[in-house]
């Protein structure tokens, strides 16, 4: 428990720090959001009107620390302001909409990629030196070294444009009514296939390599040899003696990988025009939608922290040695 409490305290500190960075970063960006709005809209605005608008958007000339304090207050009360681009939509609602898609995409893809990669890694390590191992290792190296943007573009080109099997973007058929209907669910699946596939492709290799190397490092351990000496079935030794232990470092590396996963999903969302957090952030940056950018980074950091915490938790569950500590 002490371990988890310590982690929790760290997460709180990290969140506060991230919130601080969040506050300063957008404020350091050049340009004036109101001006951008009207520059892109191509219409004119008199100075008085501009100031009036600024006031209503809260870009006041108050001293920085006052702005900071009120910002912190609003962060902890869950009020992230209103989007400028999608005025007057509250940022939380906008991000909430996006979060659903990202969670679905990233969650499922990570689950599949982690299971698949881990499984492949285990098999490759168990059959070290065989053709299977060579093929898996090579594919894994390849998939983990090719940029997500490249994979997504190629996937889009092949399956979206050339073969035309899947749509080129968006999360569901825009003509359909969202809801718990069969038709809608099918559309969501159909639209999610390519981004999901891409994300899985990008992630699986890394998991496979990590798992393979961890396994190989463990295979010489006495308890694994003992498992074999005990005459247990191959599968039992492989899974419960080797893989189970090799999973521990893999799980802790998962915590770091979450950043990579989020980054990967960001670019994939942009390429496939998937309406998740990454795409929202991208749009917000283009539009200099300060409240959205801030909320966005904060939510992404929070997502990282939460998933790290989940990883910590599962680590404790997986490793009996930590339970008492």
């Amino acid at each position, binding site marked *: 428990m002490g371990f988890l409490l310590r982690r929790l305290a*760290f*997460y709180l*500190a*990290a969140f506060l*720090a*991230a919130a601080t*960075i969040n506050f300063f*970063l*957008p404020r*350091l*960006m*050049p340009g004036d959001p109101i001006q951008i709005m009207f520059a892109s809209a191509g219409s004119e605005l008199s100075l008085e009107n501009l100031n009036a608008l600024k006031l209503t958007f809260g870009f006041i000339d108050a001293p920085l620390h006052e702005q900071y304090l009120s910002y912190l207050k609003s962060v902890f009360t869950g009020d992230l302001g209103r989007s400028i681009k999608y005025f007057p939509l509250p940022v939380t609602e906008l991000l909430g909409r996006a979060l659903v898609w990202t969670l679905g995409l990233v969650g499922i893809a990570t689950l599949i990629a982690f299971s698949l990669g881990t499984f492949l890694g285990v098999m490759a390590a168990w059959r*070290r*030196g065989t053709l299977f*191992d*060579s093929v898996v*290792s090579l594919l894994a*190296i*390849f998939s*983990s*070294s*090719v*940029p*997500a*943007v*490249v994979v997504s*573009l*190629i996937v*889009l*080109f092949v399956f*979206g*444009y050339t073969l035309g099997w899947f749509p*080129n973007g968006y999360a569901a058929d825009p003509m359909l009514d969202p809801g718990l209907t069969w038709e809608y669910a099918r559309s969501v699946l159909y639209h999610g296939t390519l981004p999901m596939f891409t994300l899985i492709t990008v992630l699986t290799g890394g998991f496979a390599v990590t798992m393979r*190397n961890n396994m*190989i*490092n463990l*295979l*010489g351990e006495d308890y694994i040899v003992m498992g074999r000496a005990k005459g247990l079935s191959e599968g039992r030794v492989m899974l419960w003696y080797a893989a189970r232990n090799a999973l521990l470092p893999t799980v802790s590396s998962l915590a*770091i990988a979450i*950043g*990579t996963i*989020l*980054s990967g999903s*960001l*670019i994939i969302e*942009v390429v496939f025009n998937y309406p998740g957090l*990454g795409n929202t*952030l*991208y749009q917000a*940056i*283009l539009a200099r939608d300060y409240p959205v*950018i801030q909320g*966005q*980074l904060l939510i*992404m*950091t929070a*997502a*990282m*922290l939460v998933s*790290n915490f989940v990883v910590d938790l599962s680590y404790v569950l997986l490793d009996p040695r930590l339970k008492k500590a």
Partner: protein
Amino acid sequence: MKLLRQLLHNKKAVIGLAILTIIVLVAVFAPLLTEYSPVRRVGRPHQPPSWDHWLGTTRLGHDVFSRLVHGARVSLAVGFGAGLLITVIGTILGIVAGYKGGVVDEVINFFTNMVLVIPNLPLLLVLAAFIGQASPLVIAIILGFTSWAWGVRVTRSETLSIRQRDYVKSAEMLGEPGWRIMAFEIFPNLVSIVGINFIGSVIFAVIAEATLEFLGLGDPNTVSWGIMLYNAQNASALSVGAWWDLLAPCFALALLGLGLALINFAIDEIANPRLRTGGMLARWVGMVRLGEGKL
């Protein structure tokens, strides 16, 4: 040097080094490889690959091949520049934290962990947007200053274990100054970790640069693979069927990534002999087949 010699004995490393060398040579001799300027219109828009234009032309009528070979320079420069920066920062902080311990370690470790939990690419996006029209140099610098955390983590944990070795203790007992212990006793034993960190950072930097530029946060004046992707995407290359415009930089990036990853994998194998499979397994299989023996 020893590392290099070992690398040359590893098949993966040789393939990886070969890929990298080819790309480096192409980058260095870019002007000799093509008669076309990468920034001038030399053909009609979106011509498919032909004898005149090996990889076709872009929407603006630039020669894709010429842009590709010239772009290699930027991608390599940013990759290796940022990779170096990331590695230097990561290694120094990692060794200092791991060796000094105490408050220094606590502080460095806290910041490292914090940087690790702040999502990197979104942060980069915001930073690049903040700086505006990020030139390759600027991209390399922001990458360097935001991406060192992973390096610190692995270097630190390795340093922690090396610090426990008796040779470090005996150096301390001889009265060696701290900096000497870090630089001459610990660092030489981190070579493979640092090497992996460096190559990994280079891969990361190449990818991150391409991504940032693809998202339109780069400087469109530059000729780089990321900008090529950006231009192709903006020209709707895929909708209008100009696949060469988009796929050329894609494959270049994939190839560079693969080459570097192979080298990294090989260093991993060298540092950790257990990971090696090498020729013995092939020989072993052959001998079992011949009935020379069994397990």
